[in-house]
């Protein structure tokens, strides 16, 4: 892309505009929120001055973290070498290895359904920061977040008591 850039005639940057067309015609401004070539604040300033209909597009790059559950990708099958390990570690290493061997092929997730789901969020204006895939992933996240919320609720009064102005009593300092 850098190699195909078209060179600009330098003097054009300082050409004086005789008649600004936006003075007499309705105008629209699409502000690129992440623009590094023209400061987005300048684009907003122009649009305000001209009374343009304005559409703001946030920075073009968006991030989504895909959090999948188990999918039948053969990740845990022929693509993994499983070893029972030493008998001393049977309770941990052995158990994990056996679980993986038994679980392979029984994961709830279908990889052929995962791919279009990921493609779908790339087409969204407001994609999620995190996308759970699979019922197992969803249930685990839900359970985890509900447990965290329960914990927070249990200690809510103490949490809120540390503001300068708080309706909840702050525990007296222990000596």
């Amino acid at each position, binding site marked *: *892309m*850098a*190699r195909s*850039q*078209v*060179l*600009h*005639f*330098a*003097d*054009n*940057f*300082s*050409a*004086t*505009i*005789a*008649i*600004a*067309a*936006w*003075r*007499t*015609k*309705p*105008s*629209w*401004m*699409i*502000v*690129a929120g*992440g*623009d*590094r*070539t*023209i*400061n*987005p*604040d*300048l*684009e907003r*300033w*122009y*649009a305000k*001055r*001209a009374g*343009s209909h304005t559409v703001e597009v946030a*920075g*073009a*790059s968006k991030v989504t973290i895909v959090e999948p559950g188990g999918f039948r990708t053969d990740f845990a099958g022929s693509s993994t070498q499983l070893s029972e390990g030493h008998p001393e570690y049977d309770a941990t290493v052995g158990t994990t290895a056996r679980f993986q061997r038994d679980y392979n092929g029984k994961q709830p997730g279908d990889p052929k359904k995962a791919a279009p789901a990921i493609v779908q969020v790339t087409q969204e204006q407001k994609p999620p920061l995190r996308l759970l895939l699979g019922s197992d992933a969803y249930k685990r996240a839900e359970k985890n977040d509900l447990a965290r919320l329960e914990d927070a609720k249990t200690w809510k009064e103490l949490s809120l008591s540390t503001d300068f102005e708080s309706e909840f009593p702050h525990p007296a300092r222990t000596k």
Partner: protein
Amino acid sequence: MVPGRKAFTTFLSRNGYNASIVQEPETPFQDHVTATTGIPRSARRPEHPCRAQLWGSRNYESGHTDPSVVGLVYVAAHMPDSGEKESDDGKRFPSDLAKSGAIKKTPDGFTYIDPAQFHGLFAADLPSD
């Protein structure tokens, strides 16, 4: 009339608009005005010229006098007033590009962005190739 922006032009065509792509000459400003003025006369519908990253002479100036121009669309663009220069307006809110020192100039008076810094400054949201 859309300078560059093929995808946008395809979208407009699919939705029933008569869209043209103009590559303005990368030569003095008045050439742009001359080059783009003839386009709407050959178009059947009223046009919204669209000033993209390329020179927007049409939007800046010549759209004023042409009756077939019914509106102006500025896509992340400069929008100078009568008597102003784009370079002066840029100083109101300097861009990352202006501050980077990446704008280089050839001996015969053409500017370009240092290829090593081009991707980060001009197309950071696109794949680097």
